[in-house]
């Protein structure tokens, strides 16, 4: 069908959107809109994913405190029961900005070692130390001679790159810890691309499902990099037979680098959403390890177990239009993986509001998905490009409601913060009641969520939450 509306900025398929982004036609110009994390934050996420590491932030107190509060205390201690670990900081002040902070940094590394006895110290530079030109790498080298653990330095100035470069530079730095292999660990792999430690990845449940399935096949994991791995595991990371990723997007850079530099093959598959992608993911790991037969047995057994759910999903989704909006959380790659899954069950996927910025930042992954045949219909609306405010979210909500009305038999995949006039499948990853979404257990959970959405579509939605999110409506 064709939608010709004033509020639609782009309507086509993923390939066409990618072409527009690549040609610079579809990059937002508004400076005050769409501000994801800075490079420092994302670097911190990755480094924090190594156990017993001290991230030593060479900067004022604002940035490290935000991160230690958000990542270490809340995400790790509060949610995952991990002991409180330090985030050290040189607390640069005006005088250091004028005269330089290298001397203080060297002292800080020595102090951090004496105080916390870590396995690794990573110096993270901030805007301040980056601009004044403190030589963090030299200080790291000098400090390493004086203390009993490795000291690495990471140039992570907030202005120094986008959020993606923070992840990638940090993953690249971690490679320095990987020692030449002394042996080969048979049937063992690394999982790449996790961050926010020290427990595995940001959504444990998905990683648990991956570990479960690999375990069933007989495949072992050396390290989840960097989702709670130890420095010792990182030292042995080159002894594995294969690298794989829990999410192709985050793992691919490190996978490519480890393949290029160390010759370790990397399994290229998308996220295991739905039966086909899950099969591909398992076989993508098992085949290179020579364990295809074992994997096929596991797949067959697991498929049998979820057959009722697969049938139920097929019946529920066949002939429907699946409007998929996972633009803010948990992200665009999941939205595209989901598009592939609903198509498998007979739906027509329409992905709404995948921000062109995220397309730009995830270019290799988007191209990979296109090569795999994932090329859903995409709609971008004006609200997406407005000044970064919650009012723009209301505008997007209104646009979504209008779009949904134009499709027959629509079903919405996103989160319950949207109120379209159709069944809503709440796929936010912040809902722990129906996790994981990966693998065969994911099929069971998604099936349950779809069933609930359809069966309960006539139940009233919360006026309270709607009013909270979008204000009191008069129309």
């Amino acid at each position, binding site marked *: 069908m064709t939608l010709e509306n004033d509020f639609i900025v782009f309507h086509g398929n993923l390939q066409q959107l990618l072409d527009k982004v690549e040609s610079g036609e579809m990059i937002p110009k508004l400076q005050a809109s769409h501000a994801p994390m800075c490079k420092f934050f994302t670097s911190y996420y990755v480094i924090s994913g190594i156990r017993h590491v001290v991230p030593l932030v060479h900067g004022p107190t604002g940035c490290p405190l935000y991160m230690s509060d958000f990542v270490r205390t809340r995400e790790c201690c509060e949610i995952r029961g991990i002991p409180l670990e330090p985030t050290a900081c040189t607390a640069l002040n005006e005088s250091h900005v004028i005269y330089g902070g290298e001397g203080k940094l060297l002292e800080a590394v020595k102090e951090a070692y004496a105080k916390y006895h870590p396995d690794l110290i990573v110096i993270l530079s901030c805007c301040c130390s980056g601009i004044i030109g403190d030589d963090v790498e030299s200080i790291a080298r000098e400090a390493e001679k004086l203390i009993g653990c490795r000291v690495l330095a990471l140039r992570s100035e907030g202005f120094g790159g986008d959020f993606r470069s923070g992840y990638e530079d940090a993953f690249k730095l971690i490679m320095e810890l990987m020692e030449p292999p002394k042996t080969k660990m048979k049937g063992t792999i690394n999982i790449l691309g996790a961050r926010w430690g020290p427990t595995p990845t940001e959504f444990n449940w998905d990683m648990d499902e991956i570990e479960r399935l690999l375990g069933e096949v007989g495949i072992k994991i050396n390290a989840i990099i960097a989702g709670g791995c130890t420095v010792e595991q990182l030292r042995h990371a080159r002894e594995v037979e294969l690298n794989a990723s829990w999410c192709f997007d985050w793992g691919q850079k490190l996978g490519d680098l480890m393949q290029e530099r160390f010759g370790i093959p990397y399994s290229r598959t998308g996220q295991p959403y739905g039966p086909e992608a899950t099969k591909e993911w398992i076989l993508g790991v098992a085949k290179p390890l020579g364990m295809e037969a074992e994997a096929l047995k596991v797949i067959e057994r697991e498929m049998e177990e979820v057959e009722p759910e697969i049938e139920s999903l097929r019946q529920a989704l066949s002939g429907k239009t699946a409007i998929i909006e996972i633009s803010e959380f948990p992200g665009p790659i999941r939205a595209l993986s989901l598009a592939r899954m609903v198509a498998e069950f007979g739906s027509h996927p329409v992905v709404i509001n995948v921000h062109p910025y995220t397309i730009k930042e995830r270019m290799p992954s988007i191209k990979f998905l296109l090569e795999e045949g994932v090329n859903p219909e995409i709609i971008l609306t004006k609200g997406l490009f407005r000044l970064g*405010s919650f009012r723009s979210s209301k505008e997007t909500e209104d646009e979504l409601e209008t779009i949904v009305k134009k499709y027959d038999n629509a079903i919405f995949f996103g989160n319950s913060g949207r109120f379209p006039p159709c069944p809503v499948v709440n796929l936010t990853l912040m809902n722990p009641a129906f996790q994981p979404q990966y693998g065969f257990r994911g099929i069971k959970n998604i099936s349950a969520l779809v069933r609930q959405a359809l069966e309960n579509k006539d139940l009233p939605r919360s006026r309270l939450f709607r009013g909270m999110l979008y204000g009191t409506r008069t129309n």
Partner: protein
Amino acid sequence: MGQEPIKEMAGSSTSSSEACTDPYLRCAFNGAALTALGISHSALLAHSPQGCEYLVNNAFASQECDYMETMTLCTKLCVDEIVHGGEDILARTIREVKDLPISALFVLSACGPEIVGDDIVGVCEALQPEVKFRLVPIESAGFRGSQYDGIDIAMDTILKKLVKDDVEKIPGSVCLVAPHANANPTWPADLAWVKQVLFRMGIKVVATLTHRTPIAEIENIASAETSLLLSHDAGQKAADYLSATFGIEQVCKGIPLPIGMTNTQRWLTALGDRFDILKTAEEIVAEGERMVMATCRRKWPMARFMYRTPAAIVADATVGIPLVRFVTEEMEMTPELVALYTSHRSVWELLEGELKSLGLNPKVVYGTDVYKTRKSLQEVRPRVVFGSTIERHASEGLPVAYVVEVVRMMRQFRMINREYFGYTGILNLLECVQNEWVMGWRSKERRYEAKW
């Protein structure tokens, strides 16, 4: 006991004798944002890389802004703007938002643009004629100090830029200073209690610097006869400026904030004295104390069994100093460690006065960080800690019976604002203690399996 207090450090709120710290306090940029976001019908533009926007969001939450009413913006500086300067992008961003229906746009500069020398004041002056709202530049780079220094910087700019000096004094009036520099996670309730008490005393509040404060109130601040500082961590500079520039006298100076029976009585009495309404103050005290006692008689807080239990207080000075007396007098515990995030001279003097008057001699740590707190807890080994979630985790492995989370250094979820100030405040604090006390009794092991 019986020794001199150990003073680990003193100086400014952010200076440290150590090279490596694990801080409790955010940077000046965060404090400035917290202050600016307290002004109604305004927006905030962070002239910064996009990461600093997260500090603004944190300040947004602390100020309890309504996201349907308040907008925050960011220039999202990248390496190009650091190399070539970011003034153009700042100007472009201001032009982008020139139709916003606001009274003022606060432009806050972060570390990067200040080091490379972006002139946010110049840009704002140049663009002022193009926009309908007031442009207020605040130079608040993170490296200028802690969040408390940032509050002082922002208040200084706001007062110098917005206050009109041609206003008439309002007899019996007050302006409230720095209520937001308070680690009580529901501090707006403290402010509400202060306002309600002042209303009952017939004292007019001219302005609040800052919480949901219209620009008109700020402009009119010079009409106040007195100022009342609601923090021991920030705001003294603003009170001094108001005194020196507009002759606004500071009341309740040098008295701990009204947490606990004695502090509340002293604070209310000082107000009564100044405004010649001592009788009303005495009535409020008598009523309040009666209410607290009657409530406790009915509710019967079991936490009274903590008699002379060694306790630690880890907090900002605003909550921490008055808590010393509350813990000692109301709870009958013995503070053996007092660790404060800040270390201003005035903080030091106030705490030492309190300790002397109570006859206490605990270990005292000024300008504490997480490491110093953990080490002090290991050394002192208190059985009860009044602090934040951080202390809950930092106490792991120590013989701490329970941690009462009374301050917020990280997110703490409470839907209803509950004051610590005043008489209901005493009950709220007792409730926190009581609930932790009950939790401490909960068995971690099941003694037998149910039969059904």
